[in-house]
């Protein structure tokens, strides 16, 4: 359950940024979770409201956008959407697929109130 500390970092960033912007409350936090980031969206959703309690983000909504992992086959050049960590090209069997995205874990937007 490292999603608990991920949620803590997330809420910390949200509250810091809101404060810097002169806002009092965070009402919505948007995150991008890469499919290959090792973070389970459901676990993050579970931890988030617990961690928000007693902070400026109490009651905030968490919007998770899952970033599907994308890669390129080094042999046939096809663009591949990866559903897991297995780096075998589904069209020609070449290996390993070069991963271009899907490892990120980012805060992308906050909605705040004065």
């Amino acid at each position: 359950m490292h999603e608990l500390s991920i949620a803590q970092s997330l809420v910390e960033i949200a509250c810091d940024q809101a404060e810097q912007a002169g806002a009092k409350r965070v009402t919505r936090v948007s995150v991008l979770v890469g499919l290959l980031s090792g973070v389970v969206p459901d676990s993050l959703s579970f931890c988030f409201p617990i961690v928000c309690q007693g902070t400026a983000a109490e009651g905030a909504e968490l919007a998770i956008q899952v970033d599907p992992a994308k890669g390129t086959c080094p042999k046939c050049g096809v663009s591949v959407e990866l559903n897991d960590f297995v780096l075998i090209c589904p069209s020609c069997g070449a290996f390993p697929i070069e991963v271009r995205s899907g490892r990120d874990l980012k805060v992308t937007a906050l909605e705040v109130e004065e």
Partner: protein
Amino acid sequence: MCDTCGCGMPSHEHAHEYESDHDGHVIELEMNVLAKNDVYAAANREHLASRGAVAINMISSPGAGKTTLLQQSLNQLKDWRPLAVVEGDLQTDNDARRIQGVGVPVHQINTNNGCHLDAHMVGHAYEHLSLATGSLVFIENVGNLVCPAGFDLGENATVVLLSVTEGDDKPAKYPVAFVNAQVMVITKTDLLPYVDFSMDRCKEFARAVNPDLEIIECSSRTGDGMDGWVAWVKRLANQVAS
């Protein structure tokens, strides 16, 4: 430069604001959730570099044999470089005492049920240890094959250990730790006759998710393969030094 607006600020570090449809503001960001951990990790890297020290992060499920491997191999490395060990466990200092038994400076971190070490904890451990110049530091992470993998500790290399009693399909079932490691040590090979564990299948699963993964087989019980592990450690340390 920022990809979002080309403003010349490093991306991940700043926010753009605009009015939302509702009462509030929307603050657009592009910030790594683990940015703070990464700052501590960078500080750890600098701390190591300033002393010419090298750190190895060891990850496995509980009981795969991390502490035993250290107990068995530190003796062979003791005269080569100053050593230090950071022990991470949920509770107890049992492992630290085992390492003390081989005469190597050790600092125990108890995470109090936290499932992984983070860079901040490790930074404090380095302070406690006051690392000698040229130290080789082993960080035994909390026993957990999933959670520690996402947290950069500022280490020079990550080792994932897998014991043959855990099954040969673990790299397929729990890929993240294997994706982020440079080496996989397959431990307890003395038990191979008693378990259904195919070395080939295991390596195939591991390389399917990490083609560059180096693989070492060893037994801390018989000492088989221990030389391969020690040789890898020395190679890494020399590589970092040059």
